[in-house]
C-alpha cells in the first residue's frame, strides 16, 4: 500500500514538475523584467525554452533533503571572481541542508583536465555536479557519462553540446547588444571605438562580440571600430593594450568596449593615467565589485551586471529539484536553459546594486 502511495506521489510530482517546466519556459520568453531603475529591458530570453522531449523516469532512492548528499563544483578556474561568486551561491543554498556537502575541483582552465575530473567524480559516486565547461565539445562525453550514471549535471554559464540536466546562464549576446546601444546612443550614432577582446575563441567573448557588432552594424553604421585586440581577460594586459591604443589613435577614441570588467578596469586606469578620464566612454561586462566602484568614481562608464551569487543559488535549486524528482535527465534531448536577468548599470543606478548583491 505504501509502495503504491509512493508511486502515485512520484507520478504527481513528475507531472507537476513538467507543468512547472513548461510554465517557466513560457514565462521566460517574456522580456527580462528588472526592477532596478535604469535596467535595460531590451534583452529577452528567446532561447530559454526548457524542452524535455523524450522525457524518461528513474527511481531515485535518496531524499536530497535528508540523506547524505555529495556535490561537486567544477569551474573553469577556481581562482576567478565569477567562479567564487557562483560557488558561494551554490554553497549558501546547499548549506540550508546539513546533509549536503560541496567540494570544489579546479581544472585550471584545462578542458582535458576538466573532463578527467568529471569522470573521477562519476567513479566516486557524487550525487550531483555543478559545472562551468571550458570547452563544450571536449566535455560532452564526460557529461554524458555522468548523466547516464544518474548524476545530474547543472552547468553554469556554459554547457556542453550533449544535452544535460540544465544550464543557468548569464546573458552574453544580449549583453553585447545592450552595451552597443548604450555606447551608440551616448555617441549620438557617430564616433570611433576600440574593443578589448577576451581570449581568442572564448565562447562568452565570441557571443558578446557578436551581439555588440550585430547592433553596431545594423543600428549605428556611422560608428567605426578602430581596432579590436585580445587582452585575455587580464587587467594589466588590457591596461597595456589601452596604452597602445591611446598612443596609436590619441584623441580619436570615443569609446571602449571590454569583454569583461577586469579589462574595462585596466582600460579605465590607462585612460585615467593619460588624463582623459571622462572623455572616453568605457563599458565592461559582469558587474564585479571593483567595476561598480569604478563606475561610482567615474573611471569607467558602465557594465552589465549579473548577480552571480544568485546564479549559483538558482543552479543549486534546480539540482535539488531534479534529485527530489524521478525525472531522468539523461533522456533529455535538449538542455533546459535559464538565463539570469542582465542589469545595465551606470552612474545613475549603481547605488541600486547594494553591498549584499556585490561580488
Amino acid at each position, binding site marked *: 500500500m505504501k509502495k503504491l502511495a509512493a508511486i502515485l506521489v512520484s507520478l504527481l510530482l513528475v507531472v507537476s514538475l513538467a507543468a512547472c517546466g513548461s510554465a517557466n519556459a513560457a514565462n521566460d520568453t517574456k522580456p527580462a523584467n528588472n526592477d532596478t531603475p535604469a535596467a535595460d529591458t531590451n534583452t529577452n530570453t528567446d532561447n530559454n525554452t526548457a524542452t524535455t522531449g523524450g522525457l524518461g523516469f528513474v527511481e531515485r532512492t535518496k531524499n536530497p533533503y535528508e540523506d547524505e548528499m555529495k556535490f561537486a563544483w567544477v569551474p573553469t578556474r*577556481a*581562482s*576567478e571572481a565569477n567562479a567564487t561568486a557562483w560557488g558561494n551561491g551554490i554553497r549558501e543554498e546547499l548549506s540550508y541542508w546539513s546533509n549536503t556537502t560541496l567540494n570544489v575541483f579546479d581544472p585550471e582552465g584545462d578542458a582535458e583536465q576538466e573532463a578527467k575530473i568529471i569522470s573521477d567524480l562519476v567513479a566516486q559516486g557524487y550525487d550531483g555536479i555543478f559545472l562551468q565547461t571550458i570547452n563544450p565539445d571536449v566535455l560532452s562525453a564526460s557529461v554524458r557519462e555522468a548523466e547516464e550514471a544518474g548524476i545530474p549535471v547543472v552547468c553554469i554559464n556554459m554547457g556542453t553540446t550533449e544535452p544535460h540536466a540544465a544550464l543557468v546562464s548569464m546573458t552574453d549576446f544580449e549583453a553585447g547588444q545592450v552595451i552597443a546601444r548604450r555606447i551608440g546612443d551616448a555617441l549620438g550614432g557617430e564616433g570611433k571605438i576600440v574593443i578589448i577582446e577576451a581570449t581568442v575563441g572564448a565562447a562568452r567573448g565570441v557571443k558578446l562580440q557578436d551581439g555588440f557588432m550585430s547592433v553596431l552594424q545594423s543600428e549605428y553604421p556611422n560608428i567605426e571600430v578602430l581596432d579590436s585586440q585580445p587582452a585575455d581577460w587580464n587587467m594589466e594586459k588590457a*591596461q597595456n593594450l589601452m596604452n597602445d591604443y591611446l*598612443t*596609436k589613435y590619441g584623441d580619436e577614441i570615443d569609446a571602449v568596449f571590454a569583454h569583461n570588467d577586469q579589462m574595462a578596469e585596466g582600460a579605465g586606469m590607462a585612460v585615467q593615467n593619460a588624463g582623459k578620464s571622462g572623455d572616453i566612454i568605457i563599458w565592461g561586462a559582469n558587474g564585479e565589485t571593483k567595476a561598480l566602484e569604478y563606475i561610482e568614481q567615474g573611471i569607467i562608464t558602465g557594465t552589465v551586471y549579473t548577480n552571480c551569487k544568485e546564479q549559483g543559488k538558482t543552479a543549486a535549486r534546480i539540482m535539488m529539484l531534479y534529485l527530489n524528482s524521478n525525472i531522468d535527465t539523461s533522456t533529455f534531448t535538449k538542455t533546459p536553459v535559464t538565463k539570469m536577468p542582465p542589469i545595465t548599470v551606470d552612474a545613475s543606478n549603481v547605488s541600486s546594486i547594494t553591498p549584499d548583491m556585490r561580488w
Partner: protein
Amino acid sequence: MSNSVKNNPVVKAILGSSRILVLLILAVFFTIATKGTFFSYKNLVNILYSVSLIGIMICGACFAVLLGGIDRTVSGNAALSGAIVAMTILNKGVGGSNVALAIFLGLGAGVLSGLIHGLILSRFNIPAFLLTLATNEVLYGFVQLVTSNTLIYVNGCTLMDYIGQVRWLGIPIPVYIMLACILFAYIILNHTVYGRQVYSVGGNRQSSELSGVPARKVILIAYIISGFMGALAGFVLSSMNQQASAGQAKNYENNVLAAIVVGGVSMRGGSGSIQNAILGAFLIGVIENGMNLMGVPSIYKDMAKGIIIIVAVAMDMANQPGTPLNNLKRRLSKKAA
C-alpha cells in the same frame, strides 16, 4: 665602415650584441610601419611600463639561472605577496604602520619562500626545475587560502595608489622600481665578490667549492634574492591593479624565463648578464607593442613573436664559439672568402 666608426663604443656594442641589433632593426621597422608613432616618447614609456613587472622578476630569477638552476616560483611569490599585502591592508586598515606591516609580511613571504628553496636546492641534489614547478603550485594553493579565491580590493592606500597611478616626468613609478632593481642586480653581479661567486658556482660548482667558494651560501642567497624580487613584483602588480587575486601573475614565469633565454643567459649557468636578460624582456615587449600599434591580428602575433625570438636566439648562438650555428657560420664565411 671606417676604423673610427668601427671603434666607436656605441657601434661596437651594437655590432657585438645580436640582441641590440635585432632591437634596432625592429625599432626601425616598427617606426616605419607605424609612421613614427612607435618612436614617440609616450610609446617608449608604454614599452617600459609593459615590461616593468617582468623586469623586476628577471632581476631575481636571473641569479638562479646564472647558477645553472631555475626559479619558476617568481609568479607564485608575486601572487602570494600581493595577496598578503592586500589582505593585511583590508583587515588592518590603510594607516601607515599597517601598510608597513603589510609590505613587510608580503616581501617577507617571498624571502621565506626563497630561503626554503635555497636551503633545499643547496643541500639536496634535486633538479631546480622540478622543485620550483611543484612549489609554485603550492604557493598558488596558499594564495587561494589567503584570498579564499575572491578578488581582494585595496581602496584608499596612499602608497599603493602612488605606485599604481603616479608618474614622474611622465614615467610610471613601476618603471623606476624596475630600474632600481636592475641597478641592484647589476652592481651585485658585476661589482661584488658574491657576483663573481655566482658565475663561478654556475660555471663549475665542484671546482668552485674546491677553491673555497661557499657554494651552498651562494645558492641560498640567490634564491632569497629571487624570492624577494618576485614578492616585490607582486606588491607592484597589486598596486597597479589596486587589487589582488588568486590567479595573479599566473604563468608570468614563462615570460621571465623566455626573456632570460632570449637575453642569452645560459641555462647551464655561469654565463650571461643581467643587462642582456633585460634586453631580452625589451625585445619581447617591443614585438608585442609594435604589433599592437600595427594592428596585427592576434592570431599572427604569437607566431611572429615566436619566430623573432628564434631568430634572436639563433643569431646569438651563431656568435658563440663551438655551437653548431657558429661552425656553420664559419664554414659559410670561409666559402665566401
